[in-house]
């Protein structure tokens, strides 16, 4: 058997494996990993690693602990794989683990994350600006950079909900599951966060 034939057969097998994993859900892949399929973990890891990395990075405002916490989260996922329920949703489980790890970090760091600040908000600040609003935002690099700062300044519960929605792509129901609040609370936090971000962006770039 020539080297060329072997390589082509290997690449065919890899392509078939890639197609197979693309068609499989997170849950199927992770359950396959729990019974010994290491390749299945790699697939699910590659699907979620960058989003999770940014989720951690934004919550920590890019501090030096990002890599450590990111690795810790995946280590916990690997070690707790036997706890993953067959009827569970992988992404909510993953972000619950990440959230708990972040809470541990904030506790150790002395930063409170459980302050619910919506009651202190002035509802008038969150006035709806209508279909397109009085002014449209000109999306550009400068505005994106300002958005990054504003996300860092959001109250922790709003920041968390915003990132779970925009970064992890979770639904309101899934956000409620991850954060342990009811869906209405998650929804209102998300609305407050978006209104606040937009208000400040309009003030700066409108």
């Amino acid at each position: 058997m020539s080297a060329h034939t072997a390589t082509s057969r290997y690449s065919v097998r890899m392509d078939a494996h890639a197609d197979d994993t693309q068609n499989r859900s997170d849950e199927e892949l992770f359950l396959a990993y729990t019974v010994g399929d290491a390749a299945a973990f790699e697939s699910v890891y590659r699907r979620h690693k960058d989003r999770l990395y940014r989720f951690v990075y934004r919550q920590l405002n890019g501090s030096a602990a990002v890599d450590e916490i990111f690795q810790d989260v995946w280590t916990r996922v690997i070690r707790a794989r036997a706890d993953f329920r067959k009827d569970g949703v992988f992404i909510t489980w993953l972000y619950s683990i990440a959230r708990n790890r972040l809470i541990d970090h904030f506790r150790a760091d002395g930063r409170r994350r459980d302050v619910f600040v919506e009651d202190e908000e002035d509802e008038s600040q969150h006035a709806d600006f209508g279909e397109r609003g009085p002014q449209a935002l000109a999306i550009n690099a400068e505005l994106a950079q300002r958005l990054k700062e504003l996300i860092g300044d959001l109250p922790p519960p709003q920041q968390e909900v915003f990132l779970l929605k925009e970064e992890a792509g979770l639904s309101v129901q899934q956000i409620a599951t991850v954060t342990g609040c009811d869906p209405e609370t998650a929804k209102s936090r998300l609305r407050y966060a978006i209104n606040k971000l937009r208000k400040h962006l309009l003030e700066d770039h409108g």
Partner: protein
Amino acid sequence: MVNKNEQEIRDAYAELNRHESLRSPDSLDAAILAESRRAVHSKPAPVRKSMPKWAPPLAMAATVILTATLVILVPEQAENPGAPQAVVASQESASEPVVLATANDDSNIDTSTSDSGVSQVSKRKQSVAAVAEEAAPVESFSRLATSPEFSIQRDSAADAIQLEESIATFSDSVPLLSTLDSSEQTQDTVEDPVKWKSRIEELLKEDDLEAADEEFSEFKKVYPQHPFVAQYEKRRQSRTE
């Protein structure tokens, strides 16, 4: 449904991600994937169920209380060996009314050996129980009934005599049961069934059937369950035949 405001922020956030192109470092990816492969070859770590924080102090307190209780109670029991028996007897006394109610039936069975004492004793037991229940709370009666002076033995006629003595001793010593005396006196006026039975038999021997029947009817009223009743009726029937 996504409103326009939300869409604008979403677009801005996407722009931010494009601009920053944040990704997990390759070295970190390699380390995590290596760990995942290593883990496949080993069993998942058992989930450690940590003990609640309050469990050790609670266990310690329970141990101390148990030890202290034993230390206090054991010498007390050694000094007063009757105490635990009383406790057991008082538990038995809970079933006392049932025993008393069946005492009459027992007397029928035992009459061949001792038809004298048992039925009277059982009646006395009943009257003692009835009076005591009226006179005092059940609990105090149970306590009294289980005292050594009031040790009721139910199995034999000899024990029945002992019971009578016990009752007599006890009723003298306990003012609570002084009301029993009146009922005891009424019981004492009733003739002993053995004597009564022998007198009826004498009347039968003398062929004084009328007097015998009269005595028997009185006897039957007082001791309706007595085996002599059946015996007498049988004998009278055979005589008339």
